[in-house]
């Protein structure tokens, strides 16, 4: 398993000490096993062994595809993501109410805009979390991602200002946990 350690990945600043392929492989096995048990709910020997075979097969394919790294199995940020999630969910609720109000308002108070916003995450994983958080929040959609900038479409000025304020950007960078 040791040969899985590819150190050439672009922008993988998070590697360093926390990167151990064996642990990520085992982590993937455990996650898949949990998924299997929760989705099937049967505990007979035959079905459990079928599950074990499927899991090993999946992990083997993932190994061959070089997917078992801290991006494919992001164990190192699990706790940080769990702390970020409640804040994100609350933002989503607020944005939902706002967009719903604008959609049913007779005067349709929207002023769509397309603009660039700075991205402060260093890793691909962090940038993906940020872009997905923006898209998940109604009122803003991430359209394109270049190094250091994200192209965002916003439904109205308030949503655009929300992104430019950078609160979400800061929080996702904290999740990334490089500094």
């Amino acid at each position, binding site marked *: 398993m040791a040969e899985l350690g590819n150190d050439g990945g672009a922008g993988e600043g998070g590697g360093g000490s926390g990167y151990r392929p064996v642990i990520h492989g085992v982590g993937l096995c455990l996650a898949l096993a949990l*998924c299997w048990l*929760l*989705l099937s*709910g049967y505990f007979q020997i035959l079905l459990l062994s079928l599950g074990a075979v499927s899991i090993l097969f999946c992990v083997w394919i993932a190994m061959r595809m070089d997917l078992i790294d801290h991006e494919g199995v992001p164990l190192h940020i699990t706790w940080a993501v769990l702390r970020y999630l409640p804040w994100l969910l609350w933002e*989503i*609720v607020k944005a*939902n109410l706002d*967009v*719903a109000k604008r*959609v*049913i308002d007779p005067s*349709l108070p*929207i*002023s*769509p*805009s*397309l*603009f*660039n916003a700075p991205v402060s995450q260093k890793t691909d994983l962090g940038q993906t979390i940020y*872009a*997905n*958080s*923006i*898209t*998940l*929040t*109604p*009122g*803003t*959609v*991430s*359209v*394109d991602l270049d190094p250091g900038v994200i*192209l965002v*479409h916003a*439904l109205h000025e308030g949503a655009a200002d929300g992104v430019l304020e950078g609160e979400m950007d800061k929080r996702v960078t904290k999740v990334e946990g490089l500094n």
Partner: protein
Amino acid sequence: MAVILDILSWFLLIGGSAFVIIGAFGMWRLPDFYSRLHPAGLTDTMGAGLILLGLLLQSEAFMVGIKLLMIAVFLMFTSPTSGHATARAALAAGLRPWQAPEEAKKLADENDGGNKDGAA
């Protein structure tokens, strides 16, 4: 207790349905492709979220509840990914976003070719 849960669950289900309907209404009402992505987001987040939460309160078996939670988790990954892919494809195909009339006038003077320098 069961009655309270039932009432709460019905509120969540009705609330979720309302968001789905508002989302659909918004997709019909808004002016262009990009702005229509936003009400689509209503359906994906609050609509699906509240309905799943309401169903969660209705589910008696643990396994059913877990599956509903897993649907919610998977939606949190798939819906922004597909939304982003759709928007990006539109931009790559050269579709320009609609702008409020007064904003479009403001920008008409600085006639730059690139899509990426839209409204700032």
